[in-house]
């Protein structure tokens, strides 16, 4: 306690110096919490895009289908009986399911054509559990038994399609011949997921099954919706076990397994952030070491005196180290306050980092305004980290000062 008091008093002796050194730490922290909130916000909305519009939280499909799912084959489809589905929905974390039949198609309007993905959906389950129905900007949702399609807004603009227009999907059927699905556009949707807006045509699953000549109860995958994204991995593992009791080929896959691109991107961003934080903290460390040396040089006589009065080298080192840690606390506090302010602005007003940028990236990241998300853990981590770093970078120069012989110093 006494040591802390002395350290505090010593810091107050050179207020300007202490503050300058602390500023470097504060900037590092402020930058880190802000960037972290930004990336977290961006990733959060991307994950939302995936789970709400593309895969759901968990997909049930045949293991062999999973292996070449990118080609959207019509082989190795999944069919579960209603009892099992009911059993799944009764699980506490599962809120609903939706079977889908995906296939590659060529959309043509008679003049131009465009490759895309056709997605047969169960009208009721899809509307209850996913957000396609809520995203309509024009027209209406599909009607049972009608040859209708719901398409994304970008696709509609590119192909100049309006509600009520006809479109043709050229498809390859299961018996390896061509077929055509004639559809009327019943609705146009605008989702935050660019992939859905650009590339997908939704149509009733029965119509898709009939035209593609697959069995009337099969799907490419069955999407499950959960109460919480975080539960997907553990829930998926349990459901896989359950599926193993009815079939050897069906497996359960969590959304994380399908969103590898994004997960890798997040890891990459996190790595870059840590690197930048490291660089600025490296500067801060040099600053702290410098400050400690300056104050040691200034106070050699005091140190000699303290040692002469019986303080051990260890204690003196610790005392000076505490001073360095004090700079860390100050910088940390300053940084956390500034950072919290910045994150507050980010969560309330958002930031449009894509301003002036045309075109899109090939990832389910919405190119809209990004809002940050609060992550208390980051604040705590970075605060403690800055104190530890400060303390450590003060130790070597502290030891250098503390081991000087009192006799030599007092002699001068």
């Amino acid at each position, binding site marked *: 306690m006494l040591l802390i008091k002395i350290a505090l008093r010593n810091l107050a002796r050179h207020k300007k110096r202490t503050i300058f*050194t602390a500023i470097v730490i504060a900037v590092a922290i402020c930058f880190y919490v802000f960037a972290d909130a930004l990336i977290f916000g961006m990733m959060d909305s991307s994950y939302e895009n995936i789970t709400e519009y593309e895969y759901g939280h968990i997909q049930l499909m045949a293991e062999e289908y999973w292996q070449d799912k990118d080609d959207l084959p019509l082989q190795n489809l999944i069919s579960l009986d209603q009892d099992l589905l009911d059993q799944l929905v009764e699980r506490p974390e599962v809120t609903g399911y939706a079977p889908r039949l995906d296939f590659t198609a060529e959309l043509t309007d008679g003049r131009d054509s465009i490759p895309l993905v056709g997605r047969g959906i169960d009208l009721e389950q899809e509307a209850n559990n996913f957000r396609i129905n809520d995203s309509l900007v024009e027209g209406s949702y599909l009607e049972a038994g009608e040859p209708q399609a719901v398409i994304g807004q970008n696709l509609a603009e590119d192909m100049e399609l309006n509600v009520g227009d006809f479109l043709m999907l050229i498809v390859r059927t299961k018996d390896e011949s061509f077929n055509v699905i004639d559809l009327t556009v019943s609705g146009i949707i605008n989702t935050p997921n660019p992939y859905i807006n650009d590339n997908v045509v939704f149509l009733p699953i029965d119509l898709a099954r009939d035209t593609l000549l697959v069995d009337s109860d099969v799907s490419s995958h069955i999407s499950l919706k959960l109460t919480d994204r975080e539960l997907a991995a553990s829930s998926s593992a349990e459901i896989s076990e359950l599926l193993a009791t009815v079939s050897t080929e069906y497996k359960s896959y969590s959304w994380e397994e399908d969103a590898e*691109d994004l997960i890798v991107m997040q890891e990459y961003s996190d790595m870059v952030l840590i690197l930048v934080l490291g660089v600025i903290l490296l500067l801060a460390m040099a600053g702290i070491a410098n400050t400690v040396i300056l104050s040691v040089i200034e106070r050699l006589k005091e140190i000699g005196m303290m040692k002469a009065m019986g303080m051990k080298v260890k204690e003196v080192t610790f005392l000076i180290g505490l001073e360095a840690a004090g700079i860390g606390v100050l910088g940390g506090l300053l940084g956390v306050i500034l950072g919290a302010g910045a994150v507050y602005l980010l969560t309330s007003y958002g930031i449009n980092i894509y301003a002036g940028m045309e075109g899109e990236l090939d990832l389910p990241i919405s190119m809209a305004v990004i809002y940050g998300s609060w992550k208390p853990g980051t604040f705590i981590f970075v605060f403690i980290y800055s104190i530890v770093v400060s303390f450590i970078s003060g130790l070597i120069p502290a030891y250098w000062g503390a081991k000087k012989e009192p006799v030599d110093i007092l002699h001068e």
Partner: protein
Amino acid sequence: MRYILSIALRNLRRHKLRTLLSISAIIIAVIIGIFYRSILIAYSESTFENFIQLESGHVRLVDEEYARRERVLSLQYPVDGFDGEGLQNMMNRIEEEEAITGMLPRLRFPAFYAAGDEMEHMMGWGIDIDREIEEIDFGRHLTEGRLPEADNREIAFGHSLLEKLNREVGGTITLLYNTSYNSLQGTTFTITGSINTGLPYFDANIFVTHLNQAQQILDMPDQATELLVFGGNRDQDDAIVASLSDQFQSYGGSDKYQLTSWRDSGGIVQWLMAYQRIIFVVMAGIVFLASLIIINTLMMVIKERKKEIGTMASLGLKGKEIVLLFTFEGALMGMLGSVIGAIIGGGLTAYFSVVGLDFTEVMGSMGDSTLIDSVVFPTFSLENLLVAMILGIVVSTIACIIPARQAAKVKPSEAMRDL
């Protein structure tokens, strides 16, 4: 002036360890700035080059309607002369312009391959092989076989696409496509070559055939979907646009065609340009943070030497000169740090510009649509070293003026009182 400089130099040597420690932060900041910027420049340069060669030329000429719905790759809005007189005529006329050194007509069209119950979609490029070789050395991307010839049903595939289709060079493949009259056609091609550009976007999606072959199968004689125009270098874009606009004046077509400089044609190019400016500001910020440490040292030095300052002042040194003395001391530290940083940073970039930094692991999972090479060779350039060094010196010198001004406030009488 000179003697002030020599006093500052002598003062720096008084505490070598302290001086070295004070400048360590500047050294680190300059090294990081140089290294990061060298990667960014390399990355931007290769992206710009790839973009120019494969997407935009220096200036790209397309039909306005085509550009509006680019993704559709519509064949209804071709480049077919200023006034419908044909592509060849148009190119002959443009060729006479001095600012223009080359042109690449391309006919891009969607095609697909049906295997079993699946359809594999891809994009065909009808290209004028001779011109492509001459202008952008297209042949260097060929890893196997040869490029397709005119009047032959021959194609060369991006290597990943070829692999995915399970075919080999020398084999044949039947592709389906829509002609400009929108009839679905199939043609069996001989695969003459495999192409590896290093760009996943190209290698996984695209096959090339000779322009005249594409024109034949699509029923588009003397037409292309786009014309990439090249000048002496990429900064000629404005001159190219100007001379093409002149041509429009004389021969018509100004309301039909759209001219786009490579600078304005893609998100990634604009983004990288903005990013380069931002990084410059960030570098200045980091150097300023590093300068705070020098400021600290200077403040201490000034306190330490109060008596000296008092002596100097009473011997007749003016306040301005005292400020100058300490500014020099700080600036010298900044300079020393910046030079050392530039030397180390230069060494690092020189080393990695030969060895290369491999980002394959990170880029590999970024999808097939990026126009980015996965191995980056940082650009070693004196310009980069100079920029970082000058930035370091300027920022630290300015920062040092703040504490140096305090030195002039020392009153000789007070400073000498303790004596």
